[in-house]
């Protein structure tokens, strides 16, 4: 008599494919998952609590550490929220610098995603190739603001540093280089039959459930919902640039892959225009009082981070410190759909689906 039992497997918190300290308890029937329970909080640093005792400027370096793969957009969302509260007008040159670093950051972040995703799927080399290109962006950031990961570049009212001499030219040169490399990536991976078999039709959900679960970014756009905050609720100076919002309709891992891949190309397009229109001269900081005391009130700003809609909700009591600071962290929200997707899939697909959602644990746990 054969006795079969369900296997309770504890994937993580230390596991090569959970992209950090994420734990998911799966019940396995053979290799098929019958139940999945995510457990998070291993990286919870209490940013929101810490922020209540810090001034707005002091909070910005903490946001670097939330989504550490895309620190620039985190910087921006906080600054943008405070600026909205204070009704500040940002100098043109600062806006351009912000936009350029944010788009570079989007490319860098998607490159990290691309590399690690293929590493999850089992291909080693793409990771190294992606990091070669990311390294160039990181070096540019290093030159601009003196750090390679936690940039702390933006301030309320502008940016800390002006672009050093020749920096804009470096960005300009990077665009055709990156385009060429994207072609290489496409040849290396996008047509690979093994890869396609791994991602097509895996982790499918429809637009209805994507909206219901509050997904954003590529996770939402892969289901055919054409919603990109840069276009639909523009912030910064995105309305001046011409770019498309890539959309796929299949809603599977491959669709998400294609959306992100296309987003890199669109970011390059934006960069191309931004570099051309970059103002010759100008201030990089608005006139901001030394102690930032936004008026009493409440604001919620949201921008399109590489992972989706990152939001910042500030409750201000006219003090230098925020009364309550809450971040809408896209990875945290996007991850909620995971248990639903995993049921009935194999262990192998767990890795593919989790990688496809593109989470950063620093952001999930806040």
């Amino acid at each position, binding site marked *: 008599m054969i006795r079969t039992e369900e296997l309770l497997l504890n994937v993580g918190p230390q596991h090569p494919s959970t992209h950090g300290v994420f734990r998911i308890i799966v019940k396995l029937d053979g290799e098929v998952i019958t139940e999945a329970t995510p457990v998070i909080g291993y990286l919870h640093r209490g940013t929101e609590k810490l922020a209540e005792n*810090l001034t707005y*400027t*002091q*909070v910005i*370096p*903490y946001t670097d550490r939330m989504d550490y793969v895309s620190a620039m957009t985190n910087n921006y969302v906080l600054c943008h929220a405070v600026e909205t509260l204070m009704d500040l007008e940002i100098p043109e040159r600062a806006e351009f610098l912000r936009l350029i670093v944010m788009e570079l950051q989007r490319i860098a972040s998607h490159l990290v995603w691309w590399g690690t995703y293929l590493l999850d799927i089992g291909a080693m*080399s793409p990771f190294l*190739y992606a990091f*070669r290109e990311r*390294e160039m962006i990181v070096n540019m950031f*290093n*030159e*601009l*603001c*003196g*750090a390679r990961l*936690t940039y*702390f570049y933006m301030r309320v009212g502008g940016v*800390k*540093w*002006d672009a*050093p*001499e020749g920096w804009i030219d470096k960005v300009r040169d990077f665009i055709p280089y990156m385009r060429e490399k994207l072609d*290489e990536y496409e*040849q*290396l*991976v*996008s*047509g*690979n*039959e*093994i*890869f*396609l078999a791994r991602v097509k039709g895996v982790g499918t959900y429809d637009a209805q459930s994507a909206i219901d679960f509050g997904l954003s970014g590529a996770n939402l756009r892969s289901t055919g919902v054409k919603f990109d905050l840069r276009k639909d609720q523009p912030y910064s100076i995105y309305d001046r640039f011409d770019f498309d919002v890539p959309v796929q309709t299949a809603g599977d891992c491959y669709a998400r892959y294609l959306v992100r891949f296309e987003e890199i190309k669109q970011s390059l397009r934006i960069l191309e225009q931004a570099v051309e229109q970059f103002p010759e*001269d100008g*201030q*990089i*900081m608005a006139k901001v009082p030394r102690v930032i005391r936004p008026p009493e009130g409440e604001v919620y700003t949201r921008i399109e981070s590489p992972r989706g809609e990152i939001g910042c909700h500030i409750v201000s009591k006219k003090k230098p410190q925020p009364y309550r600071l809450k971040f809408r962290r896209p990875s945290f929200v996007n991850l909620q759909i995971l248990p639903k997707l995993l049921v009935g899939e194999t262990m192998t697909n767990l890795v593919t689906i989790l990688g496809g959602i593109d989470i950063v644990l620093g952001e999930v746990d806040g």
Partner: protein
Amino acid sequence: MKGIVKGMGVTLKNLTKKKVTHQYPDVPLEMPDRFRGVQHFDPEKCIVCNQCMNICPTDCIDLIGKKNPDPEKKGKVIDTYDINFEICILCDLCTEVCPTEAIVMTNNFELATYSRDDLFKNMEWLNDNNTNVRKENSINIPPKKAKKEEK
């Protein structure tokens, strides 16, 4: 099969390409001027205004001032100045607020030690850390002036 063959071609091409890695500890890494490394502290310049201590988001700076030993001069001089690099995040805010550039960033970044105790750096250590000091230092430079320097 076609996709696989294409991919194989890409990797084969890369086999002979120039390598991009650094021989790191053998060949030191050159950081750009703005790089935020371990601070250099100059006790001579410090006026004990406590701004760096107050702005520090992680409270990693501890300083104590004393009365100026020279009775003719007013104000305070620095007595002890410690930075705890266990929690310092090298965010640059202390150098940004410093009115006299007594604390400045350097390009030195190697902080790894075998003991956490070694990460407490006192005034002497910070004063001796005077190589690769950053040239362009404070946001207090008025933007217009900064622009001129750039050009």
